[in-house]
């Protein structure tokens, strides 16, 4: 009985002390002690948390580097593909511009019918100015047909196979074209050269040439249709000792950037060889 009383008393005292401490804490009397305790708790937790994260990073880091490298490679591949796409699209845009100009040219000149062709090569000999196109006899291309761009005359078909043809440019050293000047209505002969310079010759001395005159095909000889633009007169060479004066011509077509051309398919060159008188002994 005495033991039971003593144990109940102890329990009551413990409850009273704990209750009193809680009551004091709730009443704000343990503020500084509470702060110190919570601060210590937070510091301890921070210490553990920092170490844990460090250890976790240590084990998890290699996997992340690998995934980052993989992702980087993927992005680089994607960037390269996009760069290639940009180049392809800009090339297509340039091609569309060229085609639009050619379509416009064929609309403005509806009297002729045209076939467009890509330039796929050049003559292996640097002495010749020929280009290879990807259209041939299967597309109705015939030898002698004139070739133009939206800017002007390019040349004529020199040889044809089934799916390709060779074009002799007007700058070729062997090219000779009958031309006339638009403003002064003078007939002359245009020669190509190895340096791609065009020269007008057989111009009478009494004719006054003007720089900037437009040079057009005359149609004489039957090799080309009339009035296809070729270039402009740039440099006139007139010497009294010569029978004829000469002039340089700046071509309207940029032959170094020739990529697409039009072949005039409804023009048939005339062979005038039988009509040229020959000397008989």
């Amino acid at each position, binding site marked *: 009985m005495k033991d039971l009383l003593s144990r109940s008393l102890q329990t009551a005292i413990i409850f009273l002390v704990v209750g009193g401490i809680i009551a004091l804490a709730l009443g704000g009397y343990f503020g500084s002690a509470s702060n110190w305790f919570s601060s210590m708790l937070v510091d301890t937790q921070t210490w553990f948390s920092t170490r844990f994260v460090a250890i976790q990073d240590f084990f998890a880091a290699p996997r992340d580097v690998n995934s980052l490298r993989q992702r980087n490679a993927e992005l680089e591949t994607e960037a390269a593909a996009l760069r290639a796409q940009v180049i392809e699209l800009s090339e297509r845009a340039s091609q569309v511009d060229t085609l639009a100009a050619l379509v416009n040219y064929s609309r403005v000149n509806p009297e002729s019918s045209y076939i467009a062709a890509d330039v796929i*090569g050049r003559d*292996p*000999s*640097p*002495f010749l100015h020929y280009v290879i196109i990807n259209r041939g006899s299967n597309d109705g291309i015939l030898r002698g047909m004139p070739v133009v761009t939206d800017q002007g005359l390019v040349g004529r078909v020199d040889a044809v196979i089934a799916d390709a043809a060779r074009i002799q440019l007007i700058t070729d050293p*062997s090219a000779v074209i009958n031309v006339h000047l638009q403003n002064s209505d003078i007939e002359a002969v245009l020669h190509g050269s190895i340096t*791609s310079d065009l020269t007008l010759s057989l111009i009478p001395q009494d004719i006054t040439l003007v720089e900037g005159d437009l040079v057009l095909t005359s149609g004489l000889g039957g090799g080309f249709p009339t009035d296809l633009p070729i270039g402009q007169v740039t440099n006139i060479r007139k010497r009294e000792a010569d029978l004829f004066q000469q002039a340089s011509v700046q071509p309207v077509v940029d032959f170094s950037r020739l990529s697409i051309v039009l072949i005039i398919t409804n023009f048939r060159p005339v062979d005038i060889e039988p009509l040229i008188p020959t000397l008989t002994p």
Partner: protein
Amino acid sequence: MRNLVAFPILTLAVIVQSSIVSGIPLLRGYADLTLVIVIAWSLQEEAITAWYWAIVAGALTSFITGLPWGIPLTAFLAAVFFSKTLQKRIWQAPLIALFTVTFLASLFSHLLSFAYLNVTGASIQFADAFSLVTLPSLLLNLLIAVPVFWLMRDLARWTYPIEEDEE
């Protein structure tokens, strides 16, 4: 069967020449890849089919060039002739032979083209042709000669592997 390797190599060379090399001029001249390949092949000790290569190269080039077929064919045959003649004399220095043959063959090829065009009435001045076409082409041919020679040497060793003596 291994002689047939000339066809794909030379066809590819002519295509590359027409579509790429001819579009990279120095002044008015450009390299002649096909000619340099034939020269480099004919200077290989293992290559016994150099004349055959010259005929194939001549035929393929004649197919696309505006020159008559005899001009490129003669130029390639002359290149092999120069190679075989020099190879016997300076066989210990293949690079000297390579440069000499490239120089001579390129010069001969250009002189042949120039002569033909002049005979047919093309307006070509010799000074312009030599300074604007021939000299730059010579320089470019000499520049590509060495890498082409090493490629042809690898091709020759691959095509004609050295047979070891069995004891």
